[in-house]
């Protein structure tokens, strides 16, 4: 599956029980979509860092949006109600949306959780891949997502535009 080049249109329910669309984020100079879920240990290892990036860059208008597309029938831990509970427990400041039809995941070309897609002000993809280079935060040496956000805010090309995401597979409906 190839990765998308521009941000896909979406209109999805969020854990705040409101729908959120691509248009809602039109004012954000940088939009980050993160393919995610509840049950994956790789997501659990990285989610605090993703949340922290949202806190760090909120003042500059950056929006980070996590999207779960996993088949909740096969993986009940990824149901919408479980998402609501998980976002509360993990004190998410990011929006967390449910892509039940999996249309957005397919449009993105997502394969893993977590998998980040950074779009610039024109909603062109400028970075795709991992959050950073180590699930153990103390051992991180390359901050791919943070560097991509910084570059996009500056109107520059990120130093690294594509990395291989490390994580669980997206749980597709059969």
């Amino acid at each position, binding site marked *: 599956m190839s990765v998308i080049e521009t941000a896909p249109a979406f209109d999805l329910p969020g854990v705040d029980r409101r729908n959120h669309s691509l248009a809602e984020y039109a004012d954000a100079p940088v939009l980050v979509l993160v393919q995610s879920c509840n*049950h*994956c*240990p*790789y997501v*659990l*290892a990285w989610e605090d860092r993703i949340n922290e990036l949202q806190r760090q860059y909120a003042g500059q208008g950056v929006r980070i949006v996590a999207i779960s597309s996993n088949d909740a029938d*096969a*993986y009940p831990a990824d149901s919408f109600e479980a998402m609501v509970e998980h976002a509360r427990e993990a004190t998410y400041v990011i929006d967390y949306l449910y892509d039940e039809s999996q249309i957005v995941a397919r449009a993105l070309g997502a394969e893993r959780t977590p998998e980040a897609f950074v779009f610039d002000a024109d909603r062109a993809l400028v970075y795709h891949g991992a959050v950073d280079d180590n*699930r153990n935060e103390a051992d991180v040496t390359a901050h791919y997502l943070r560097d991509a956000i910084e570059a996009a805010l500056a109107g520059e090309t990120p130093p690294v535009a594509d990395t291989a995401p*490390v*994580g*669980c*597979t997206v*749980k597709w409906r059969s």
Partner: protein
Amino acid sequence: MKVEFLFWEGCPSYPEARELLEAVLTEHGLEQPIDVIEVLTQHDAVRLAFPGSPTIRIDGRDVDEAGALSPPSLTCRVYRLPDGRPSPVPSRQQLEEALP
């Protein structure tokens, strides 16, 4: 002693977990063959009571007995490190404590 290592290829943690298991066994002087079992289908997961990848059993006992209670599933298993952080692989301490 019987050592079983069950994994599902859809979760990328199994090479690291197997390497850690082999290292721990070696360090404890246990030149024990590991019975490596690939779980391919949900049917296999149910049949093998496989709660996620990787699953390690020593003499039939899961190295993380609490996690072993999760429903059988083709998924990545969540372990907790001694400091409480989630991890896709068990800690060295968990493996060592599971040795006879």
